[in-house]
């Protein structure tokens, strides 16, 4: 086997019966880590690439916003209210004569942050509580599940309002509130997944091997429940942005004039017939970001499934 063949072979990582079933050295196998392998397979998925491009586009947009536009987010030109898209204002202006493109670009910073931190927070605590409840069951499950039930019993936005009212109105507190109301959604999802996994024979086999609970959770339970978590996280991203918008609309989230897509959407509501572009720009932005995360999520799920390998 030549060096080049070996390399290609290693890349494919398929047993090669034509070569008499020769196999790689342990060192070479170890070189292809599971992470690299996942990324390699993610790269093969065209939709995941599209999703990735969309997200990178918005991240860049947020980062280099000052280079792209000379306007500021709060600069009002009341004479130029509700202008349609033109060379001067790429996406038109809103009801206060602010440049929409500028606000979308700067808003990407805020909205991506809102989505990311709210989802990460909800995902972390929801997964943690869900695993504990599902795996240990009994009274632990009783307590955690009742807390989830109580959180879900409130209309989510009402709960968020209550939390923000207690903590005080700011972007950070809005994030915390959104994360909290999303915890039971992840928690219940993970819990039900763990309960069905707990009955799997490989969990019993792991116990029969003398494996400790923590190890079983990290090695068997968590990796096997990752797929629904990822899908829920990508979906939750969009909801989080919209919930932040709802809070902003009530004056409890992002404070004006900080641009936030959801807030922009809420502001533009009154001008839907007069100046539809004021609505379209933030709407399409939210849609694209959610789509981007969904595509990545789908691709990630497939890439993590060993049955889709080769």
């Amino acid at each position, binding site marked *: 086997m030549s060096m080049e063949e070996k390399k290609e072979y290693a890349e494919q*990582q398929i*047993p090669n019966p034509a070569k008499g*079933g020769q*196999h*790689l050295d*342990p060192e070479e*196998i170890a070189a292809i880590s599971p992470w690299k392998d996942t990324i390699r397979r993610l790269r093969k998925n065209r939709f995941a690439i599209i999703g990735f491009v969309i997200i990178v586009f918005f991240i860049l947009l947020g980062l280099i916003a000052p280079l792209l536009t000379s306007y500021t987010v709060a600069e009002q030109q009341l004479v130029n209210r509700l202008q349609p898209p033109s060379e001067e204002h790429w996406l038109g202006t809103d009801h206060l004569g602010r440049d929409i493109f500028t606000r979308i670009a700067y808003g990407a910073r805020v909205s991506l942050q809102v989505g990311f931190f709210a989802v990460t927070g909800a995902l972390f605590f929801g997964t943690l509580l869900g695993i504990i409840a599902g795996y240990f069951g*009994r009274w632990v499950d009783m307590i955690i599940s009742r807390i989830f039930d109580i959180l879900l019993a409130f209309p989510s936005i009402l709960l968020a309002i209550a939390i923000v009212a207690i903590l005080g109105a700011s972007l950070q507190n809005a994030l915390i509130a959104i994360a909290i109301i999303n915890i039971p959604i992840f928690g219940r999802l993970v819990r039900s997944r763990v309960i069905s996994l707990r009955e*799997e*024979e*490989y969990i*019993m*086999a*792991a*116990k*029969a*091997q*003398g*494996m*400790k609970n923590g*190890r079983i959770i990290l*090695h*068997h339970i968590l*990796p*096997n429940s990752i797929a629904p978590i990822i899908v829920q996280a990508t979906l939750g991203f969009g909801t989080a942005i919209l919930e932040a918008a709802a809070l902003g609309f009530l004056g409890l989230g992002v404070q004006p004039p900080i641009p936030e897509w959801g807030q922009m959407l809420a502001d533009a509501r009154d001008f839907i017939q007069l100046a539809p572009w004021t609505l379209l720009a933030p709407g399409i932005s939210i849609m694209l970001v959610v789509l981007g995360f969904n595509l990545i999520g789908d691709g990630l799920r497939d890439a*993590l499934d*060993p*049955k889709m*390998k080769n």
Partner: protein
Amino acid sequence: MSRIVLEIKNLSTHFFTDSGEIPAVDQVSLHVHKGEVVGIVGESGCGKSVTSLSIMQLVPNPPGKIVGGEINYKGENLAFASEKRMKKLRGNEISMIFQEPMTSLNPLFTIGNQMREAFRFHQKISKKEAREKSISMLKLVGIPRAESIIDDYPHQLSGGMRQRVMIAMAMSCDPELLIADEPTTALDVTIQAQILDLMRKLNEEKDTAILLITHDLGVVADICDRVVVMYAGQVVEEGSKREILKDPKHPYSQGLIRSLPRIHEREQKLYSIPGTVPKPKLGRVGCRFAPRCELAFNRCFEGNPELYVTGEGRRSRCFLYDKQEGEAINDATTEAVIGD
């Protein structure tokens, strides 16, 4: 006889459900010598799996709980041992393989990865050593191309291969005792024979005691040294394989053996024991098999039979063998049943 590895005395495991306490395992006693293959035979629901899970302290709790008895493993009572102690023993000294090889492996990790876990948990060895040991274990259980299979995922292997991997994992720390819960039930007959041969081979080479749980008398005939027959949570008969297959004492064992097809006899219809296993419940009076037994007489419905000694190392839970009943009934009725 060599020394005893496992001795269970009057083990009772009950399930506490909404509809009451269910004695799934009721006063079961059995023992396994070093290097011996003991079969537990019985219909589904007779408590054989719960017995094996009780030994490992893996009975799902709630609702199950060991309520009494002793599980002596090399002189140490495990019935109420701490979870910490059990984790030390599981996989290291007592291993277990399960019925469904298709679901006994985590689908997300390679065979090598999962085998390494088994090694690294009980033995402090490096990744590389664990890998080499895993490969040699896979070779031992007769897996071809072990060096490549080790990097495969479970779904790439057939059921028989997976069961071999499970056995390799179970045997990786050289356990004293291997509990096999219907290891061949989900496999087809040719693979079944291979797996049994493999277990016999490991038993002979490594002198591992095996507690084999099965409902298949063919499997018993193949590899067991001794047999324990269970019915409705109780041991009803115990003896060497040869004696039980040739001369079963308990009417239930007789029925089981009669319901096997035989090569040299042309019978139109295969015998089957009438009725089904009764649901276990507390406070039952009378022999549990009595309602289905052709030989039942009054006493069977009134008193609970003990395990009566019927010969060298043989016991049977039937009033027919109670010395007080007299030899006369005993001879007359057993002749009638097995004199076919």
